[in-house]
């Protein structure tokens, strides 16, 4: 697959729109689903997925074929999602800068089972609890969990996409799983 993609990228670099169209066809479902799970709605998913391809096209010259094309384009799309999500939450940051600290941050509260406003929303849903639970996750955890479980990425790939160390990816996945466990526990999980 990678060799085929490299051939297409070479042709696209020469201005071959047909070739770039092939890349879009190859990745549209992947990027659309990534954006859909990150943003929670189809309109933004479509906006972001399209924007990701446009940016890829504009920046094709800077793509280094030593790395996987998949990683590169996923990174573009993920960054767009995270940027857009951060713009929507200006008042409080559930962000990774608090990672590693004990107590008091949103993560600890989620892990302990206390409810955030999003959790209340989850409780009232009768359908699609998992979807809502994912959307209640802070963006860094959400991205790691989605890339691992819905896109089957390896830890190294996720690290490359998010541009963080593998150890950070592991931590985010752990905390993401833990948060989801608490969000889903009374409604979803048949134990």
């Amino acid at each position: 697959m990678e060799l085929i993609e490299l051939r297409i990228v070479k042709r696209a670099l020469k201005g071959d729109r047909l070739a770039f169209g092939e890349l879009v066809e190859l990745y549209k479902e992947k990027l659309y689903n990534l954006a859909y799970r990150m943003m929670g709605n189809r309109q933004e998913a479509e906006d972001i997925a399209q924007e990701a391809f446009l940016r890829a096209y504009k920046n094709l010259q800077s793509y280094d074929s030593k790395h996987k094309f998949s990683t590169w384009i996923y990174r573009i799309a993920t960054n767009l999602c995270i940027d857009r999500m951060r713009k929507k939450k200006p008042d409080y940051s559930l962000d990774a800068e608090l990672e590693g600290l004990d107590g008091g941050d949103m993560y600890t509260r989620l892990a302990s089972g206390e409810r955030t406003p999003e959790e209340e929303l989850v409780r009232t849903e009768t359908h699609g609890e998992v979807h809502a639970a994912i959307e209640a996750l802070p963006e860094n955890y959400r991205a790691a969990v989605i890339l691992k479980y819905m896109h089957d990425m390896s830890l190294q790939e996720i690290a490359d996409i998010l541009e963080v160390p593998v150890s950070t990816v592991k931590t985010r996945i752990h905390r993401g799983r833990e948060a989801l466990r608490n969000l889903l526990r009374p409604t979803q999980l048949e134990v």
Partner: protein
Amino acid sequence: MSCHDQRMLQMHRELDGDLSTEEQIELEQHLATCPSCRVTYAELRATVHALVRVEWVKAPVDFTESVLAQLGEMAPVKRNWRVPFIKYSGLAAAAVLVLGMGMWMATPEQFALEADDTRGLVVQDGKVIVPEGSEYNGDIVVQNGDLEVRGKVNGNVTALNGKIYRTASANISGEIDEVDEALEKLWYFGKQVWNDVTAWAH
């Protein structure tokens, strides 16, 4: 780290597949004797199970077209898509079209030729010919028509819903692709790619 936190970390590492055999056995032994850990672990497993079962949705039908349309507005096409002149006989001018991507998707039944440089190519009876003794530099894509290579092609040749014929004197340096679009509405790579993508969701 408290005992509880240690256990939690161990469970997460187990889910990551990072436990040694000894550690795995130790965890299993602990779970056998500790109901609350057993519940926690089962909930974690169920969470992962729910995550991998999340269904994929389908991208909008006109997604690719829309992206390419926006590309068209963004920057001028670098390649020369238009045919400067073609030598042809026996073929009505209206049927010979060089199409860009967007138009091709809208009119899939029409004959089309895409080539870097059409000088030296002959179009005859819905067939594109690379004449014997000629040397063509670049790629050739023929849609809904056949390609007959009698000379030399320094590039790739592709036939979409058509056949590629070669005479004994033909010489093609690049890839030769015949794509049957009746199979799937897919591009060059056949069902395998689609299967790979959809297998994901299950």
